[in-house]
């Protein structure tokens, strides 16, 4: 069936099977491979994107469910060449190693900061608790989000 989804501000119309998952629509139909695909069972969180402004696990959403709706992916974080503070935080605080979990982590972090601009370490850990990172031990992810929250003042001073 034909669907039209607004992704990162651009309308995309495509013919899809109802059983196509949103994660595969984004990656395979639109070429937006920043969204990763891992466990396929809504556990790991590498596939997190925003659907109508809310983070969801896109391996457990059908592309047809997004018809007429709005999606934001990691490709929609930066404003042109200017990185989102969350992205900059991950760069500065070594928030990633292999990078597999990173897009999902950043999408959740951006949402958290939009709703709670000054989250505590516990609040950050709770927000990303449905997302796995096998590399960093989470410590630097939390620091990266804190950096974004304070736009650098706090962390770079230390």
């Amino acid at each position, binding site marked *: 069936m034909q669907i039209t989804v607004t992704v990162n501000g651009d309308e995309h119309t495509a013919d899809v099977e109802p059983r196509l998952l949103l994660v595969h629509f984004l990656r395979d139909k639109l070429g937006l491979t920043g969204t990763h695909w891992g*466990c396929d069972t809504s556990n790991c969180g590498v596939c*997190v994107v925003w659907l109508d402004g809310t983070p969801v696990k896109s391996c457990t959403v059908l592309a047809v469910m997004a018809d007429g709706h709005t999606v934001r992916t990691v490709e929609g974080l930066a404003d042109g060449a200017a990185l989102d503070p969350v992205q900059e935080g991950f760069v500065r605080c070594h928030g990633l190693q292999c990078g597999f979990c990173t897009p999902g982590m950043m999408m959740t972090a951006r949402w958290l900061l939009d709703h709670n601009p000054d989250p505590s370490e516990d609040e950050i850990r709770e927000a990303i608790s*449905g997302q796995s990172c096998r590399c960093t031990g989470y410590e630097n992810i939390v620091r990266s989000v804190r950096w974004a929250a304070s736009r650098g003042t706090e962390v770079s001073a230390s």
Partner: protein
Amino acid sequence: MGPMQVPAHFEYERATSVDHALALLAKWGSEARVVAGGHSLIPMMKLRLARPEALVDINDLEELAYVRLDGDVLAVGAMTRHADLLASPLVGEHYPIFHDAERVIADPVVRNRGTVGGSLCQADPSEDLSAAFAAVDAAAVVRGPDGVRRVPVREFHTGPYETVVAPGELLVEVVVPVRPGGGSAYEKVERRVGDWAVAAAGAAVWLAGDTIADAGIGLTAVGAAHFHAPAAEEFLRGSAATDSVLVEAGRIAAERCEPVADQRGPADYKKHLAGELTVRALRRAVARARGVA
């Protein structure tokens, strides 16, 4: 990682109103399934544990997404997301049991999508909200082609993954009367953060002075029929709200559970937890009813 898993072929229909959803369900008959958050149904379709011919998507039904007080009844629309139940101050004020439960259901991103109605209709024997709604003696409001009917949550589940909701029907709302003097709480043990319960218990009590005027107990994952512990409730009614009474209620509740051993633990451990978690939930519910927690 295994091979890519996608559901088998099906037809997709988007409902634009409750009436439209009912019409679509009527059109497809018993081959249709409602999809709400899809966080139970889509995984089951990937595994071919469910193979509906048609999905009726009710995610656009904003009319079913609400938490409100209708007089002295707390009403929760079926499309209320877990996250919205958790964020609702009304729920926190009148039935903190749901905030306790929601904090330990899955993780924040899953809670953004999964719904109250989907949880109850999925009828997984480990579903947390089934036990919480059973504890507070809520009623499910079901709409079908012949009108609306109301079913106590304690009679809603007819077996594992089975409910009274017939093909062609839709769960639209869950309602709980708000009564003065009450307190409620939920206690869960899981293997790791975000996992399904090894065992969990919910309790609601209403005090008249130091006497327990009424009580409700819900249990999940421990083989309690209808997620409910009626004998322990019966024992509590009219008893003094002392710790030894609560402990005895826990013992009675556990005695009647028939948990099965699985990867989450052996049966005797789950039975033990059923009793212990009932006592802990009762203690917190009583403390909250007294306004000291």
